[in-house]
């Protein structure tokens, strides 16, 4: 027990590496924040979006963020409720990613608003006919459930660490004491927490499906070619699992190396996550074939133009890099056991995440680039969308925020559930607290 507590908690301290990394993040954050102040001052015109392509990086990024946050539900709820024990050490990583991406997704949408100071109007003058209201509702719900799913299982951990981990930084002790809610490992406490987590795990499944389905409806509820699709809900959800699984694998690799968790995040965990990734990638491939082959066979005028632009036109290079490099090749590679070992799997996951981000761009931008009626008598930058430096910096801002949140949570709390790991190894954390 002593070894488990120590192994899983030794990273909880303020060390040089942490300060360097956080310093870098904060500096980058401030630099990008400056870009946003420019946008506040001069308006959305500092970005590359214009009348025809009026949604660009921000909205693509928003979709990516919502997508990445979905993984919390897949790992904790779906795989956890089925009864796979191997997911236990990964659940907290998945929930951390879910919380970080869901929290920042809300900010990303504010970055895209022409009038961010009127944000309160969304609640004051809420019109529930608008899918934006549905999105606000379900994302808030999902965020709260994810936060609870991150927090509740951590309560016993914090109690154990407070009492048993001598190296817990003194300034963190009061935080742990308050957050552990006077946990004594009483059977009644265990019963309550067990039931609460169980209910939340069930509730999070519809909530997670809703957030990405509703996000897909922001597009699918319009009549534009490329968005006007009935399978956008499941198409987005399956794509979200691909992005999220890859993100979790990258995080696993990072924590395993930096926090020295080789004994807890073993090759078996990577192998299994590789299998999860290849499974969801196959599902996503299936939806991709549907999404492109069905309109591609009929070639209605607007759809034909859209598909031509994607596959042979202005977006062709990006399209094929994303589909082949970010989906097809990873699927083939991941079929081999050797490729599911930590290092190669992480490299493949990085390719998948980059592909997943650009895939969102390919869903949002090309459709807007060729509306039903011709784009005429406007300046060249209205016809072709080129993201500006400020726009890219503001997009980076959101990524930096996610990294800051993940860093803070993972640095000051155990990345792997301590009590659960002990229980899985047949140890009794109850006794360890009493003693």
């Amino acid at each position: 027990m002593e070894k488990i507590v120590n192994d899983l908690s030794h990273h909880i301290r303020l060390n040089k590496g942490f300060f360097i990394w956080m310093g870098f993040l904060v500096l980058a954050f401030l630099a990008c924040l400056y870009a946003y102040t420019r946008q506040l001052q001069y308006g959305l015109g500092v970005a590359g979006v214009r009348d025809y392509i009026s949604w660009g990086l921000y909205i693509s990024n928003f979709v990516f963020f919502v997508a990445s946050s979905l993984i919390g539900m897949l790992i904790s709820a779906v795989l956890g409720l089925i009864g796979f024990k191997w997911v236990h050490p990964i659940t907290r990583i998945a929930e951390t990613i879910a919380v970080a991406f869901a929290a920042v997704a809300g900010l990303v949408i504010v970055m895209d608003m022409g009038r961010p100071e009127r944000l309160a109007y969304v609640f004051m003058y809420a019109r529930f006919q608008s899918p934006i209201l549905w999105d606000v509702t379900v994302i808030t719900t999902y965020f709260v459930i994810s936060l609870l799913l991150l927090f509740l299982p951590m309560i016993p951990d914090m109690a154990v660490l407070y009492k048993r981990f001598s190296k817990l930084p003194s300034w963190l002790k009061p935080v742990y004491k308050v957050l552990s809610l006077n946990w004594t490992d009483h059977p009644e406490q265990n019963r309550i927490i067990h039931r609460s987590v169980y209910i939340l795990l069930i509730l999070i499944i519809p909530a997670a499906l809703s957030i990405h389905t509703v996000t897909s409806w922001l597009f699918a509820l319009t009549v534009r070619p490329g968005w006007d699709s009935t399978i956008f809900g499941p198409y987005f959800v399956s794509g979200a699992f691909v992005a999220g699984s890859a993100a979790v694998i990258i995080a696993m690799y990072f924590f395993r190396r930096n926090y020295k968790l080789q004994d807890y995040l073993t090759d078996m965990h990577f192998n299994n996550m590789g299998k999860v990734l290849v499974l969801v990638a196959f599902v996503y491939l299936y939806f991709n074939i549907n999404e492109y082959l069905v309109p591609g066979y009929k070639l209605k005028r607007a759809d034909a133009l859209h598909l031509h632009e994607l596959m042979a036109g202005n977006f062709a290079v990006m399209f094929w890099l994303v589909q082949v490099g970010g989906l097809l090749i990873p699927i083939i590679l991941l079929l081999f056991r050797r490729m599911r070992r930590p290092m190669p799997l992480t490299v493949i996951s990085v390719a998948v995440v980059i592909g997943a981000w650009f895939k969102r761009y390919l869903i949002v931008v090309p459709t807007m680039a060729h509306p039903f009626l011709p784009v005429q008598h406007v300046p060249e930058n209205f016809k072709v969308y080129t993201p500006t430096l400020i726009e890219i910096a503001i997009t980076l801002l959101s990524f930096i925020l996610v990294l800051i949140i993940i860093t803070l949570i993972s640095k000051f709390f155990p990345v792997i559930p301590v009590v659960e790991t002990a229980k899985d190894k047949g140890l009794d954390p109850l006794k360890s607290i009493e003693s």
Partner: protein
Amino acid sequence: MDENTVNNRDEQDPSKSSRRNFMKNIGLLGAGVAAGAGALYSGDIFEKKKAATGESKVLLTQDNKLVEVDSLEMKVLAKNPEKLKLQEGREGIPGKRWVMVIDLSKCRNARRCISACQDAHQLKPEQYHMNTLQMQDSPGTAPYNMPKNCQHCDNPPCVAVCPVDATYKRGDGIVLIDNVRCIGCRFCMAACPYSARIFNWTTPKDADKHSGETYNVELNVPQKIGTVSKCLFSADRCREGKLPYCVSACPNGVYYFGDENEDAVTNGTTKETTRLSKLLRDNGAYQLMPELGTKPRVYYLPPKNRLFPFEPSTD
């Protein structure tokens, strides 16, 4: 009848009758005094009122009627003129169903409609509420010029998706935007299949000059940065009983504008008024992409029998 009964009673009981008569007379006198006093009092109030104001005002009501009202009778509904205009702008003009007909056989791409519109709505040269597009439906068919504005759909996809009720459909058929309410999410722009909506990406044209003006939702000026704008069917001109800016500016007789309820549209160039149903029927009128179910309020007459060559635009 009454007297008879009284007489009958008198015969029955003479002593009672005199008292009854006396009481009756007193009552009559009392009523008379009360009525007289009332008349005097109300007359006095009337005189006082006249003395207090002594003036009446001639006003134009919302439905364009001239009325005379004593200034004491006037009640201020909203002290904020912008708010009042916003309220009025949400209701529309009672009894009207505005409709536009665009005759493509007459459009020579003079672009006067565009400049008149941009002047009225404080728009920059690249901001179009009305834009003339060079169209060619298929390689074998003739190219033609097509003025394109907001179609003021009866089933507007833009209005459906607005999260804050900033864009709305009025009773008279016009779709407007309240740029005091608009949060700039641009969902309406994504939803519109006609690319009719534009955005104020940067500081609007002559923003300094117009900054003090009261916002007029029926003209959508002053334009505000970070908000959406589009064709308004010149709702301000409709209220005045005039033709829209673009319609009046056209030198080639392309535009007809009028009220569907009256079944009459007026040509902006010739000022001739025609029966709408006959114009549509006789010329094979059509709508833009009616298959999308948007139910546009703009009709197009096909580009047939043109007496001038098509000049492709340099742009």
